[in-house]
């Protein structure tokens, strides 16, 4: 069961990550999301350091637990081109099937920026085209929320030092490029 947020309070849910995602994505004026009791974190074993607090939020599901390994590509057990932790995040968002597919398409295109051969101009252009296509598809399906979704996927994809470095290199490689906005339906 997913949840909705009203009056800055998120109601109980069976899956906190979904609650967190729903709150963070859908509530513009949200101040705090918790379990409804007003507490920010479980009452027991309150961690003393900021790092520990964040870790606990992740392990509890209040924050999405992103892969922070040194691998640039990260885990993709089902080989669908979307990193597993990001896929889990998207699939638990309160989205329609079409919105979910659009988000996964964008996640896949964004993930390609980390793995593309930066010396291969044709491949770079293909990734650029894929990003254009997924952005358009997001806009079609999520309207005004598409920009937030796009930004969230980007920040989650390039979430470690290694990935950020690689992502910066990708962007540097694209400097000077030009790409046309695609015509028609670009959803996969």
């Amino acid at each position, binding site marked *: 069961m997913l949840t909705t947020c009203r009056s800055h309070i998120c109601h109980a849910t069976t899956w906190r990550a979904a609650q967190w995602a729903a709150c963070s994505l859908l509530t*513009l004026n*949200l*101040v705090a999301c918790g379990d409804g009791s007003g507490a920010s974190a479980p009452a027991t074993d309150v961690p003393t350091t*900021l790092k520990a607090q964040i870790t606990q939020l992740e392990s509890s599901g209040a924050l999405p637990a992103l892969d922070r390994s040194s691998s640039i590509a990260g885990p993709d057990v089902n080989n669908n081109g979307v990193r597993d932790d990001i896929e889990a995040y998207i699939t638990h968002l309160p989205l329609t099937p079409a919105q979910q597919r659009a988000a996964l398409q964008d996640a896949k295109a964004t993930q390609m920026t980390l793995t593309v051969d930066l010396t291969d101009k044709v491949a770079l252009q293909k990734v650029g085209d894929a990003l254009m296509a997924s952005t358009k598809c997001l806009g079609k399906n999520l309207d005004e929320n598409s920009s937030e979704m796009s930004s969230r996927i980007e920040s989650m994809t390039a979430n470690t030092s290694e990935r*950020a470095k690689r992502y910066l290199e990708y962007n540097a490689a694209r400097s000077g490029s030009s*790409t046309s906005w695609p015509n028609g339906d670009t959803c996969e």
Partner: protein
Amino acid sequence: MRVFNPLCLWDTTAAYRCGLQILLLVFSLLGSMSAAAFTKTWNPFGYSNYAVVNYPYTTAPPVYASKQAFCEGYLPLIGASVSNVCYESSVGDYCVPKGFPCIAQDGSPNAWSYSDTAISPQPVCTYANVGADRPVIDTRPPRPRSVRANVGWSGSASVCGCINSDLQLIPDVIPDLNTGWCYDPFGLDYVISTTRYTPSTAKTPVALTVIVRRSYELAPNTPITLRVTSADGTPGTITPASGVTDANGELTASYTFPQFDKKQVDVIEIGCDSCMFNPTHVNITMAPTVVGFFNGVWNTRKQATDGLAALTTATDAVRDSISVRYELFYNQTGCGHVGTTCLQDLAEVFIQRSQQLDGVLSNRWEHFWDLVGGRHTAPQSSTGGLLGLLGNASTALVQLLDSIFNALLAQVFAGYAQMLSSPPTGADMATHISKLQAYADQDYSFVLIAHSQGNLFVNTAYDNLRSSRPNSSAKVVHIAPASPTTRGDYVLADIDLVINGLRVQGITSVPSANISLPTSRADASGHTLVGTYLDASRAALGWVQNMIKAAIAAL
């Protein structure tokens, strides 16, 4: 070979004296035309449909048996003394009625014989009626006339042509069975209001006037067909699709541009069955307006794409069906550090600062992207969500984020100042300029939109485009510019921390703020394209849209 000049035509006696000189003159003129024999099947001008307006056919003409049989002008095919065949009068020739074929001297049926029922409908000779009692071919042609030759047949009985005394078809001369004269082919001319699409006139139908002349006279009642085709896409429309020229020899039509998303050439085909160059083609070239976006150099490619997406939405709402093509011109360089991009400069700042607070952010780069995008205070962002969950415990983290954000801003100011002192050159953006020039060569027009440092790039691109393609049509829209000069209208918000920061840094050449906006947690910087200037909840969006609309209308 007998050919009459115009003067001869009014004097059939003198006609025979008209000589070779005129013939040579006429055919020397005609010699520049196609060498192929200009032959027409029956119904050569389609006047079974149209010419009847002026020449109503009635019944088979009477036979003037008592008159001398003579079909002046048709010799030698028609015997000069064949009874009941053709007659001559001072005003015209009379030809045989139905059932009485003209007979050539060699005894073969004349090609325009009405009795040749295998060919239908058959014009004139036997059933044209231009007066009360004169069925026929009026030998007085419209003035001025050109060539007069014998109308007859050669080769196929279904073909009526202009033949010489050797029974050879005369090239490029049209037999007019309504008059019995051979003429220069009709000349077709046209006047069109434009052959090129421009956004400012896209909704105005193109006015096309077709003008038909025979020799130097306008030719009324000439059937014209009009058709539009395109090898590139769905063609535009033209109305009417057919008609006849009016008393002035003109037919007016209007062409409406289609919707298109790439360069397209429509071909208007003007069909004039009697005209020498039939059909005539008019090319209408059209190309969309390139709405090009030049991003701020601290944008990732994805963020720039997101900005372009927002611009497509904003532009689509105001472009009023004008065909456009959106293009991202991505730049990330120019902040002064060789080998690194502007964004990499910011990343260095984050690497240094994220070591604080026990390195809590050192491997959490999602917060870096939020900070760069100004979204770190937005509840929807990773950072905003984290701060919300931490509640009071987040104070230290908030302070750290604020310090990093300020450090990033300082880096932005430094990079921006560097760019202002050393703006990008044409060489720096050669690829983009080449792309723009290629579009210009294909008749594309331009609305170039720039945000932040992209304004420095767009100035260079615009200047190079105008100098290298002076006939190109381009307008510039500046969003959040810091450039001391602009090439078009601009919008700059009073809450823009980046531009305001430049002023604090002593860079006073930046334009004045011209719009006052409320702050928003969606963009702490008050500077980002999507978060501030295209934010649907604030006034800058409408301002930007008005600038884009005006730019398109001015192309």
